[in-house]
């Protein structure tokens, strides 16, 4: 995967930091491997005796538990830090020192951190592989890989019409997914509240790669055209008051009525947790794939762990 000499003179090792470090061949190979694992075709002792350090300095349910589950299913074990307060960083220790120390305790490190670039820093100081499990508003490559995996379960990714809905400015999952989809000739539709559009630098970058990006005022405008509706949470703290939040959030809510005019094979994805973005009545619909998407985190992260540790 990503073989890098660390600038600190450390041992060359594999890391998974950003979806931008991948090419299409590497993504497809990893998804193929995850697909095999999903069919129960894997060595259940492949990582026997190996230890995964799970350093989560931000809250997480799905990402953390699915990494731990993935490690356990491969015969390995996990050791965890679940907050800054629970480790020596509360005493002022730098992340760099923490990573150096933890490198001595584990065979790989999974890190989530509020600062963008924290995983890249960790990869420079670690002597074991580092996997980025989300760094601030930055990258979340394992989420992107499981998003792609879930789309591929339903249909080939090439040439699809994919709509990104919600907070596209700060949502790291939307940024990473948009970047990855640029490998597949996807036409991208964006629907976001004013001020929460995709960052211009990212849009420019994607268009330079040949991606067609079409902005829409509302979901109704595009619902009959898209194959994938990727919904992200609109964060309440981005709005000056509750009223303006609810006004915006309600206009981006996915309901069964909204999907009445959708393509038969449309799938609705969401990185979760959802708040008000998806009507619970949609959960029973064949369009709804977000819980399956979440479950897919395990085989995809198993493939990632095997990739960096084998």
């Amino acid at each position, binding site marked *: 995967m990503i073989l890098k000499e660390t600038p600190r003179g450390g041992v060359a090792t594999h890391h998974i930091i950003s979806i931008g470090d991948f090419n299409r061949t590497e993504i497809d190979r990893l998804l193929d491997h995850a697909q095999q694992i999903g069919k129960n075709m894997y060595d259940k002792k492949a990582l026997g005796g190996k230890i995964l350090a799970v350093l989560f300095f931000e809250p997480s349910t799905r990402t953390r538990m699915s990494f731990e589950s993935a490690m356990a299913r491969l015969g390995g074990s996990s050791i965890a830090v679940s907050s800054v307060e629970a480790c020596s960083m509360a005493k002022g220790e*730098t992340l*760099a020192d923490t990573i150096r120390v933890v490198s001595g305790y584990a065979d790989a490190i999974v890190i989530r951190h509020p*600062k963008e*670039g924290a995983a890249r820093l960790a990869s420079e100081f670690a002597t074991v592989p580092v996997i980025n499990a989300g760094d601030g508003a930055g990258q979340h490559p394992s989420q992107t890989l499981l998003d792609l995996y879930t789309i591929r379960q339903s249909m080939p990714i090439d040439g699809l019409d994919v709509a990104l809905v919600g907070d596209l400015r700060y949502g790291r999952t939307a940024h990473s997914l948009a970047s990855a989809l640029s490998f597949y000739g996807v036409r991208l539709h964006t629907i976001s509240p004013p001020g929460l559009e995709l960052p211009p630098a990212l849009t420019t970058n994607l268009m330079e790669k040949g991606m067609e990006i079409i902005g829409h005022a509302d979901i109704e405008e595009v619902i009959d055209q898209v194959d994938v509706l990727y919904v992200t949470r609109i964060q309440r703290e981005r709005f000056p008051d509750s009223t303006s939040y609810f006004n915006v959030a309600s206009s981006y809510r996915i309901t069964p009525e909204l999907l009445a005019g959708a393509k038969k094979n449309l799938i609705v994805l969401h990185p979760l947790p959802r708040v008000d973005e998806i009507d619970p009545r949609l959960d029973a619909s064949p369009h709804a794939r977000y819980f399956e998407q979440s479950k897919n985190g395990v085989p995809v992260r198993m493939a990632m762990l095997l990739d960096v540790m084998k």
Partner: protein
Amino acid sequence: MKHLASADTNNDDGEGLLVRRIKNGTVIDHIDGGEALNVVKILGIVGTTSEALTIATNVPSKNMGMKDIVKISDRELSKEEVDRIALISPRATINIVRNYKVCEKKGVEIPTLIVGSVRCPNPGCITRTNEPIRSRFAVLPEGKGLRCIYCDSVITKDITSYII
């Protein structure tokens, strides 16, 4: 040793000698008008450093209209230092002076990586913390700016305001 020219490098456009020659050091000529102080800044030369520094700004130039000149005594800039100047003044020329003679004359080349001299504009970037790292920016092709290696933030304009 072959001497390339006189160290009075600021008279090549015919405007005459404006600042004293230096015995040893570096003369940075053909800096875009008004950028001399930013050149000094990007080289990390501050009031507490020991170099004798001469700065001429907005000197008339036949080729450039206005240009700036910076002379630094007793210090020969490294290639890495020189190339940083390309970010803000790509037409600059560097003259290494020894015993009043220009011994080396070279243009600046835009580097592929800028280390430690530019601050990331993103307050959420890990480089804006107390971690023991220096900022690193990839220089984007075709003058499209700088990209932070850590958080992917891109600086597309007004690079000088981010110089540390």
